[in-house]
């Protein structure tokens, strides 16, 4: 679905944000790109939807070279929800806001309505469809901004730090809706540095640091190498750290939920008796 070969990106002024990334993303994947600030996560994602064009290397989306497509054409395939929802909300009602994307892409009216209804449904926004989006709470504004991307019905959806600034309850609600998108067949790319989120939701993890992909594995694998996580300024969940400390008692170190740790310990104690 998405293919990146040897892409490098150098910002004006000579800062190399990504240096040589190869990436193949298949349809329906649920990927988390993790890494500290300035590791190149956002730059990489922007190279995938044409907002930035790689300085060298090339990107192909759905078998077509991205170089020959405008950002608007790419938007049909790769949707991108920005970190700050206030950077895209401008309409006077939620519904109009969500309509904006598919209408810009030139879908016929009945099609637009269908896509909008579906997006409102998935993000559970039907109750606020007539409210001005800018007066809603951050959690709602984020959902509106994501809905406005879903409504364009892109095969790939990139979500840039969707949980920043939300409390635990809001995060749970939001991630529940996001998981639905993946089940519907959308390819999801989650940019985050929340490792707990990664553990609980993603199925493939790309760990980035200094513009390179250090590790490409399932979430479990990404937790077993503490040095690597440290190198990319990431902090695994406390339970994983505990498991690492217990590893001299033969507790597996790729644990990321308290339940798992508990059952591993119970098993150990039983087995040792």
């Amino acid at each position, binding site marked *: 679905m998405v293919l990146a070969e040897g892409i490098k990106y150098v910002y*004006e002024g000579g800062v190399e944000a990504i240096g040589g990334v190869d990436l193949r993303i298949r349809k329906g994947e649920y990927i988390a790109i993790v890494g500290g600030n300035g590791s190149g996560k956002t730059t990489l994602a922007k190279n995938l939807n044409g907002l930035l064009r790689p300085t060298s290397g090339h990107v192909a989306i759905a078998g077509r070279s991205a170089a020959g497509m405008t950002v*608007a054409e790419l*938007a049909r395939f790769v949707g991108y929800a*920005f970190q700050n929802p*206030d*950077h*895209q*909300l*401008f309409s006077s009602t939620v519904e109009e806001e969500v309509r904006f994307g598919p209408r810009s892409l030139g879908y016929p009216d009945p099609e637009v309505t269908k896509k909008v209804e579906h997006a409102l449904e998935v993000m559970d926004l039907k109750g606020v469809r007539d409210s001005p989006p800018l007066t809603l709470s951050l959690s709602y504004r984020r959902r509106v901004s994501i809905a406005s991307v879903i409504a364009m019905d892109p095969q790939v959806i990139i979500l840039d730090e969707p949980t920043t600034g939300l409390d635990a309850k809001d995060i749970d609600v939001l991630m529940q809706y996001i998981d639905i998108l993946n089940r519907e067949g959308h390819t999801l790319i989650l940019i985050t540095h929340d490792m707990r989120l990664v553990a609980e939701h993603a199925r493939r993890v790309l760990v980035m640091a200094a513009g390179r992909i250090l590790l490409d594995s399932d979430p479990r694998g990404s937790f077993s190498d503490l040095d690597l996580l440290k190198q990319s300024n990431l902090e695994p969940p406390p339970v994983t750290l505990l498991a690492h400390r217990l590893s001299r008692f033969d507790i597996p170190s790729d644990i990321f939920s308290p339940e798992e740790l508990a059952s591993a310990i119970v098993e150990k104690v039983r087995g040792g008796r």
Partner: protein
Amino acid sequence: MSGFVDLYTEGKTFLHRMDPRVKIIAVLLLTLLALVVRDLFHLMVLLAFIFLLLVLGKATLAKTYFALKMVLRVMVMIMILWPFFNPGGTPVFWTYGPISITQPGVLGGIANAIRILCLATVWYILMFTTAQRDIVRGLVKLGLRFDFGLTLSIALRFLPTFGATMESIKDAQRARGLEFDKGSLIRRSKNYVAVLVPTIVSALRTADTLSLALQSRAYGARADRTYLRELKMKGSDFVALALVVGAFVIPTVARFVLKVPV
């Protein structure tokens, strides 16, 4: 694309170290001087002096070109158009109907183009050798109300920030299929609504937060506020001031009192 929003270039030259008050006064006097002087040769001397300052201040070529690019265009326009609107004097180079191109016309065009370049360069020197906050500090010390000074420095400080916000907003809307360079003029200006609304909202939110931050740091608690960094005139500042005042007063007296053409 992003360009140089702040022209200030860090440096350690004498121009950078000069008291901002002296620099502001010097720039004002040199501006007036460029308007007082009328002789082409004297204007060229003034321009040479200003360019010398530019070199001494270690201006970079790229930034100077960026700052003066528009001025160069204006200069070309003036040089071309001036002779047409000032057809007086002799010798006449060329006549066609009511239009005549004369030597004083051509020379006047060149003189005015040089004058514009003098004005622009002298202000550019102030901007690139003085940090914005020092300019504001200088203005406040010269008698500007502190509130206005603060407003000015905040405005200048946030220009690049809003520039970046606007770029990000444009990207966000492009990712939603908005195309800024397509369609009719009306279509295009309508597209900018999608950028302007979020920009204004974000500006208002920033202003709101900023005012809280100012209040929480006891802004305006005392009328007789003190300053962390006091400006102090050094010996070299007085010398520079004296030189500039001299350079301004002598030609001005010559022209207006002694009636000598300068």
